[in-house]
């Protein structure tokens, strides 16, 4: 049961986007369409799981003073693997995510999990933590991009949902991202507080 907790906490209680508020830069940038959101979420989850496993495995061996460079090398390796695999097997997705796949290297969420969790926990627990965080990040991205794509472009996953209104473009541009994320964080904080009070 305690193991399960490591997985579940990333989904809501310690959701990387809405609760810990890490890795917002890629979240703001790629949440313009649901397909981008899913792609980014899956890529980040892969990197999280891979880096968490290895950081956890080497946690006893690596001297404290050089741990950060070691973590970064591990994370960068996994990011490059994802980038190459995406270019090979999903070229269209790779193109639309562009620079943001290589930039997962500097996503605070990934290094944050390595430093705060995997460097102090056994591999299996670290995998659960990474999966929870990754899925938490993915659903947050899907929610944000669904709101932005449907309001700003009138489509979801590229399929037109309504032609009855002229989509307000700013929802797809940067201000829409900030507004959507702000309102969602407020809403989720409110809900969490309400449930806690009960």
């Amino acid at each position: 049961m305690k193991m399960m907790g490591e997985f579940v906490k990333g989904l809501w209680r310690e959701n990387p986007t809405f609760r810990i508020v890490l890795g917002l830069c890629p979240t703001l940038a790629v949440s313009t369409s649901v397909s981008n959101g899913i792609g980014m979420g899956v890529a980040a989850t892969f990197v999280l799981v891979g880096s968490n496993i290895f950081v956890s495995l080497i946690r006893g061996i690596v001297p404290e003073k050089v741990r950060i460079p070691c973590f970064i090398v591990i994370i960068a390796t996994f990011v490059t693997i994802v980038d190459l695999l995406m270019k090979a097997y999903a070229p269209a997705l790779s193109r639309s995510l562009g620079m943001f796949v290589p930039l997962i290297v500097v996503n605070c969420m990934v290094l944050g999990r390595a430093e705060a969790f995997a460097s102090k926990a056994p591999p299996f627990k670290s995998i659960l933590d990474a999966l929870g965080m990754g899925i938490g990040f993915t659903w947050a991205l899907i929610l944000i991009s669904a709101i932005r794509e449907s309001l700003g472009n009138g489509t979801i996953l590229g399929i037109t949902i309504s032609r009855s209104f002229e989509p307000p473009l700013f929802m797809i541009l940067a201000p829409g991202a900030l507004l959507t994320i702000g309102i969602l964080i407020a809403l989720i904080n409110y809900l969490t507080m309400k449930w806690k009070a009960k």
Partner: protein
Amino acid sequence: MNQMTKFGLMLGIICLAATLVLAFTYEVTRPIIAAALYREEQEALKAIMPEADSFKPGAVGGIEYFEAMNGPALVGYCLKVTGSGYGGYMHIIVGIDTGGVIKGLRILQHMETPGLGSKINEIRLGESEPYFLKQFIGKNARTISVGNGIDAITGATISSKAVTDAINKTVTEFMEKMRQ
């Protein structure tokens, strides 16, 4: 062993392992990535020059092009054009006949703002090709500009101009180089 050497060694071992893994992944994916790019290019070439049956690559003055051949006859050229748009570089492939008239074109890659600049490559419901690009076909690439034969997309003037100007400039340069 002093501490510094130990740190360096540890980091070195991890870097070595990472390099091995990356070298392996790179070698495995390289042919697949190259094949995907090649396939995409060939598809684009066939789409913009349907009357040609083979394409011979070449380069002149830094411009990469393909000679579009129908049997032994030269029917035109396909030029690789790089434009500088609002969000970054855009890669376009444009087919012209020997006189510089545009036969077809495709945007292979662009980073324009979704919902605004991305309309340069948007296909309207029920149509088969992007409406912005359709207006280029049949026009002489060396005379087009936004406002002269090409209508810009509302809210995406920079992107529209980037495509038009890049094509005009590259084709003009190319035709001059070929005449020499």
